[in-house]
């Protein structure tokens, strides 16, 4: 309960809202804090926007901002916040990436498929936030409270 309150408070402080739906996210700190609160710190490596473009097979320069914490073992845990001028296309790319991971994990790591099926993928202004963890339900509530 306390954890949920702290995360909510942190997100509210770090996310600025304006009347015309344009928001500015402190991508660096939000992603870092989500990783810590979801207890993923020891399992992930941090990718910057160039790495993410390579990972998602995006053209160089597609992303305006991007941080992705990604598991460097065979789990599918991740916390990502990315932004682009074409947010709908970016959301579609992220969704396809998650779908591809489900396929790849089906044969070897079926337990990850369940996690991936519950992946959180949300648009916030020009940002796409995507999270795969053992606590996706909790993360979903926290992001949802920002609407």
């Amino acid at each position, binding site marked *: 309960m306390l954890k949920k309150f702290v995360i909510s408070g942190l997100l509210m402080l770090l996310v600025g809202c304006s009347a015309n739906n344009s928001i500015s996210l402190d991508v660096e700190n939000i992603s870092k804090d989500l990783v810590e609160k979801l207890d993923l710190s020891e399992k992930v*490596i941090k990718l910057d926007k160039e790495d993410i473009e390579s990972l998602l*097979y995006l053209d160089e320069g597609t992303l305006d901002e991007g941080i992705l914490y*990604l598991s460097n*073992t*065979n789990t599918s845990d991740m916390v990502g916040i990315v932004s682009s001028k074409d947010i709908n296309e970016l959301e579609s790319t992220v969704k396809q990436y998650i779908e*591809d991971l489900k*396929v*790849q*994990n089906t044969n070897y*790591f079926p337990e990850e498929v369940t996690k991936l099926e519950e992946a959180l993928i949300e648009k916030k202004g020009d940002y796409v936030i995507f999270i795969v963890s053992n606590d996706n339900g909790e993360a979903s509530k926290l992001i949802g409270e920002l609407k």
Partner: protein
Amino acid sequence: MKAFLISLLLFLCIGCSSNSGKIEYSASCKKYDFYDYKNEVPETEMVDDSFFDDVFIGGDSRVGSFVLYNQLSNATLVYIDSLSLNMIDITTHKDLNDTLHNLMMNTEKNNLYLFIGINEIGMGNFDKWAIKLDEFVKELKTTEKNIYLIQSYTIHHAYGTPHEKVKDKVIMVNEKIKEVAENNFVYYLNPDPYLVGEDGYVFKDYVYDGIHFTKLGSEIFKDFLKSHVAGEKYVKEICN
């Protein structure tokens, strides 16, 4: 007379240096690579197993079959289950604690084989996959080792890809492997003549789940690798 003619012949063939008194033979030799990188490595006489003392084979779980059936145990075999190319410098091998990218870049072995691409077979197109492969191969080339890219045999099924589309997808990814090999002057291997039947799919006896080798399949694939070695035989030294 004979001595004069021999002397004259030597004089004409060798030339004289300015610091004379002494006639020196000077020649410049260069090594030329006559291999045709547009084509797959042709079948050759089988190499001895000891060739694989100096081989690193890296890739996805298909490489795991060699480990499972103790084939080519003198080679360095590194595989990561479900590995896709875009994770090659991210996912760490659970025992070796490093990425396949780093392990291949830093190995002391002089023959590098890369077997990857089957886990991405469900992709729509492979243009950007090929760009990533090209980048990695260019990096590998800086090691100045012999590099072999292994094309995929046609599997029976792939999760997320309808059976009737699997063959087309394998052809697409293999075409990209061929292009990258040709553009970077590295070798590529086509195992189909050894592994694939008239129906265009890998022989069912060679794979236990439609994808991964049985013991028999791993033996056949080992023979394929042993009989398709390029390298020094195509390099000739030519001297002026």
